[in-house]
């Protein structure tokens, strides 16, 4: 049974209840009125009888004349001489309230007239029914009015319920669409709860939209993530192996990207009898940096051939990178040509942090250098090459600023706290120690920026 039927039932019960209560009251009021009316008539009758007796009409004649009246239960005439005439007993009792007793002839005689209770009661019932019948149209109008009012109150609620159900279905992802105008239409009905419902449903709609957007974004994100992972693998494939061990020297390198793809690079390859090696760091992070990194990596292979001076060859790389680079991506870059037999390193620096030189005793010194401009910013620049000799037992440590600029919570940079000396460590151990040191310093296992290290050690 729904709310509407229950309320209608309640209404009918209340109506019947009040009708029953009021009928009782009305019946008694009618009954009393009838009693008074009968008493008045009986009094009039007694008056008539009294006058007739005074004119010597015999009681018997009077009894015959008035005794037919079925409403009478008692009709008694007692004469002063003691004789009396009385109606025979009838069905029904004397209704005391209607009884009249009229004395006459110096109170020696009396007339007693009473009405019949059965008759008065049946008259009262008839009057009540007549009155009730006359009320039927009014009651019906009242009842119909109540139903109409009830319906107008309940209908928006049912509509609201239906809208809510559809909205829930929509939220569950079923094929259902709820529009705000449906709720606004309900608000026009002046329902106080609809305002609240509207807020809830608006929030619900927004939530639904957000969920849909989120799903889309999530799907896009997953696709993007998969592509980035692949790109990261391709990028890794551009790098040579992390380790190169020759009889005179060993080279160790490590690149820890902060994201799937990054802007750091290292490379090495043989150019005639010398080993070319380089570490670079492209502006920013992510996909743009990775694309620029890939371009740089390929250009180095194409341009560094040992046909001209290293400075000239790097200047060519810079010229090509600078062409059409309106977004001003650039790569800071350190590279060298290493002659294993003599330990000579010819190097060019393009805006990169100065590498460290680990002496035989383990002491760390920055490599003295003249810094050129980072690659990719401006074509036609000259790059100066310089030279130094790596002695036996010494290690050249080239790194990107992911290491030197690893910051702690107070904004201090790791380069200010580099170890002063790293005695007795292999090239690989130096890399591990420095990366671990940067992680500890920044208090975070994942470093913020791509971090690259390349160590070149001339065996003792």
């Amino acid at each position, binding site marked *: 049974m729904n709310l509407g039927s229950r309320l209608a039932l309640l209404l009918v019960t209340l109506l019947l209840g009040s009708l029953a209560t009021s009928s009782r009251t009305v019946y008694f009021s009618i009954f009393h009125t009838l009693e008074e009316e009968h008493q008045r008539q009986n009094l009039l009758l007694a008056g008539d009888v009294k006058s007739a007796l005074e004119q010597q009409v015999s009681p018997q004649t009077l009894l015959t004349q008035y005794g037919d009246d079925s409403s009478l239960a008692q009709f008694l005439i007692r004469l002063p001489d003691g004789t009396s005439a009385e109606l025979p007993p009838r069905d029904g009792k004397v209704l005391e309230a209607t009884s009249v007793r009229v004395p006459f002839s110096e109170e020696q005689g009396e007339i007693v007239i009473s009405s019949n209770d059965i008759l008065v009661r049946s008259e009262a019932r008839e009057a009540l029914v007549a009155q009730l019948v006359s009320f039927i149209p009014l009651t019906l109008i009242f009842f119909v009015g109540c139903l109409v009012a009830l319906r107008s109150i309940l209908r928006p609620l049912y509509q609201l319920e239906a809208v809510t159900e559809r909205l829930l279905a929509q939220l569950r992802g079923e094929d259902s669409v709820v529009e705000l105008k449906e709720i606004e239409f309900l608000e026009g009905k002046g329902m106080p709860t609809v305002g609240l419902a509207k807020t809830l449903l608006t929030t619900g709609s927004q939530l639904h939209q957000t969920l849909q957007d989120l799903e889309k974004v999530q799907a896009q994100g997953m696709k993007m993530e998969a592509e980035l992972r692949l790109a990261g693998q391709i990028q890794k494939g551009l790098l040579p192996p992390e380790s190169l061990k020759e009889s005179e020297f060993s080279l160790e390198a490590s690149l820890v990207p902060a994201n799937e793809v990054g802007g750091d690079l290292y490379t090495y390859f043989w150019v005639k009898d010398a080993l070319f090696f380089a570490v670079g*760091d*492209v*502006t*920013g*992070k992510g996909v743009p940096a990775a694309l620029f990194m890939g371009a740089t990596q390929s250009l180095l292979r194409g341009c560094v051939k040992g046909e001209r001076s290293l400075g000239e060859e790097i200047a060519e790389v810079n010229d090509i990178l600078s062409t059409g680079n*309106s*977004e*001003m*991506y*650039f790569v*800071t870059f350190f590279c060298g040509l290493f002659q294993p037999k003599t330990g000579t390193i010819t190097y060019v620096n*393009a*805006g*990169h*942090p*100065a590498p460290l030189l680990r002496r035989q005793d383990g002491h760390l010194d920055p490599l003295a250098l003249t*810094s*050129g*401009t*980072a690659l990719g*910013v*401006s074509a036609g620049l000259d790059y100066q090459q310089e030279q130094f000799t790596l002695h036996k037992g010494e290690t050249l440590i080239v790194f990107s*600023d992911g290491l030197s*600029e690893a*910051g702690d919570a107070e*904004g201090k940079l790791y380069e200010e706290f580099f170890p002063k000396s790293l005695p007795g460590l292999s090239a690989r151990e130096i890399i591990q120690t420095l990366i671990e040191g940067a992680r500890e310093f920044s208090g975070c296992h994942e470093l913020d*920026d791509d971090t690259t290290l390349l160590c070149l050690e001339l065996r003792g």
Partner: protein
Amino acid sequence: MKILSELREKVLLLRPEGRVDALNSSELENALLPPLERGEKVLLCCSEMIYISSAGLRVLLKAAKTQGGSLVLCGLTEMVSRVLNISGFEKFFTVTPTTDEGLASLAG
């Protein structure tokens, strides 16, 4: 990062505060490039810039190479100065020690 901005003697004075890195360098780009593209004079005061990453440097380079307006840097902290020096970008910028000198340089 917060970028304070005021107009002084027809020069737009921008004062970034805090770190400029890959995460927020676009904010600096949005503050710096549009006025320069409109041909305005911009003085970038770097005295409150405690750190600039290469992503921030890229924005400065882009600004320096924008046709039309003119850009002067002033109040470089040791850190910013060193970064410009290491990257070899000093030659692309007009740098003055103080704000007044920067304004004077742009007034010419």
